[in-house]
């Protein structure tokens, strides 16, 4: 439920260092809250984003929510597969269901985010 190789935000995004390039998605907890995902709107490749900026949206049968940038950087690639298969987010939120990749990211900024244990505690707190 909470992989160790990613960092987490309070808005339920995750970010993973993939050898200098960073992969971003939404957490299994977010996916569980949203239910079946029907649509994901992704940022434009090349966009410079700041931490906390709304860079995309995710829609489910229940609701539409913003997706925020976990840290500052530049969008280097987006997951085109989500356009036709948004269900990948439900099936594999930390893998095939990734949203976009970022470059020009400060590793120190990423490490300021929550680790798996901190995020798990955060989610528990949200649940109560």
């Amino acid at each position, binding site marked *: 439920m909470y992989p160790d190789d990613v960092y987490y935000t309070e808005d339920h995004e995750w970010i993973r260092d993939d050898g200098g390039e960073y992969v971003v998605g939404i957490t299994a907890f977010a996916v569980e*809250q949203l239910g*079946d995902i*029907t*649509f994901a709107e992704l940022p434009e490749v090349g966009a410079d984003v700041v931490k906390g900026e709304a860079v995309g949206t995710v*829609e489910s*049968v*229940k*609701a539409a929510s913003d997706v925020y940038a976990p840290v500052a950087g530049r969008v280097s690639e987006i997951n085109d597969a989500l356009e036709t298969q*948004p*269900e990948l987010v439900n099936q594999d939120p930390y893998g095939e269901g990734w949203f976009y990749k970022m470059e020009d990211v400060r590793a120190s900024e990423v490490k300021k985010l929550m680790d798996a244990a901190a995020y798990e505690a955060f989610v528990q707190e949200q*649940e109560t």
Partner: protein
Amino acid sequence: MQLIFEKSHPGRRAITLDPFDVPEASLPDELRREEAAALPEVSELEVVRHFTKLSQRNFGIDTHFYPLGSCTMKYNPKMAESVAADGNFAKLHPHLASVGPYQRLCQGAFEVIHELENCLAEVAGMAAASLQPIAGAHGELTGTLLISAYHRAKGNQKDTILIPDSAHGTNPASAAIAGYTVVEVPSLPDGTLDVDAFKEALTDSVAGVMLTCPNTHGLFEPAVADIAAMAHEVDALMYYDGANLNAIVGRCRPGDLGFDVMHYNLHKTFATPHGMGGPGSGPVGVAEKLVPFLPGPRVHAEGEGYELIWPEQSIGRIAPYFGNFMIALRAHAYILHLGAEGLRDVADKAVLNANYVHARLKGALKSAFDGRFMHECVFSAAPLAKEHGVHALDIAKALLDTGFHAPTVYFPLTVKESLMIEPTETESKEILDAFCEAMLDIARRAKEDPESLHAAPISTPVGRLDEVRAAKELNCTF
């Protein structure tokens, strides 16, 4: 059930046209279809049976209880329908009013518009109202354009509107279309607005604050008058989303609480038809300082009659003619029929009914908030989802098998697995009791036999629909 197209037989007809008694004229080739239109060929009786059977599959307020409340469909008194069917109104051509000399033929309709605008203004403590906006969200847009016009006229440089996280989604959409940046203000765990967060967000660049009161959690905002006073200190205007006016009508007035501009949903507070496409009506009400900006033309009483005038700094026309006049007419009939006492009684009974349902269900379902609910109550199915895998959607679907419509689910967004129940004022205690028994039984089954809820509904013409596929592959044609 077969589609009417599938019942088609070549040559079958409901009516037979007489032979031509005038010379036949043919259309130019470029205007002619290449193939004949695929119209169903059926007899009159087949048409009657087809549509009668379809209508029997409708789930409507005239046949069943609807805990979705005023949002979607509350009871529309037949008295208002008979007024609207009167040929003196129904046959009035809307273009008549645009030709000066013919305005004398529209005096009755003008009187209705003028009187209803005055009634709406009085009910909400506003200086004036306009019936032009043709839906609640259209009223919101008109209201935010009025806010914008006010600040422009004063030379104020403001670009932000504050909106609570519990607001209807149309609030931020309307503000954004009017050109504003939206800043969301969080709610406290008790379901009311976080006043400290509001103070922090309230800067000189705030043009307006949009509030729903009671809010979508069904709770009256206790700090609403203080919020209005703080907003006015930075010359931000207070917008009242009238979605829940039906909870307080006759008891308290938005204008007296400090609101400057608002919309009314005539279907919610004044029982006009709604649901599945309207037509809607979302009049705006304004305080004195916004009257010069109202949409035009306005009906103005002059001597014994009425004429059309344009407010000095009008934002212009925002709808054709005078809005959805026939809907406004029904609202006017409703207001005159009930009077001040009757309207107050509507609000009182709506609040009483919601609290009765809440009191009966709170032992079995988790109440979303501890405060006193107004015209609607909110529960959370989150504990049932966690322990038994039964979600708000399962409860909603299971209710359909009991002969009641489902309540609103997954709104407000601030409550997990939310179930929002608004019984409205028109239901008897017997109906409310039967509904509560059905809900209590579902809550018991959620613990003892959750699978039966996952399988529901089993008695409706169609079972669980594939909502994901419907959202992803929207296709509205056959």
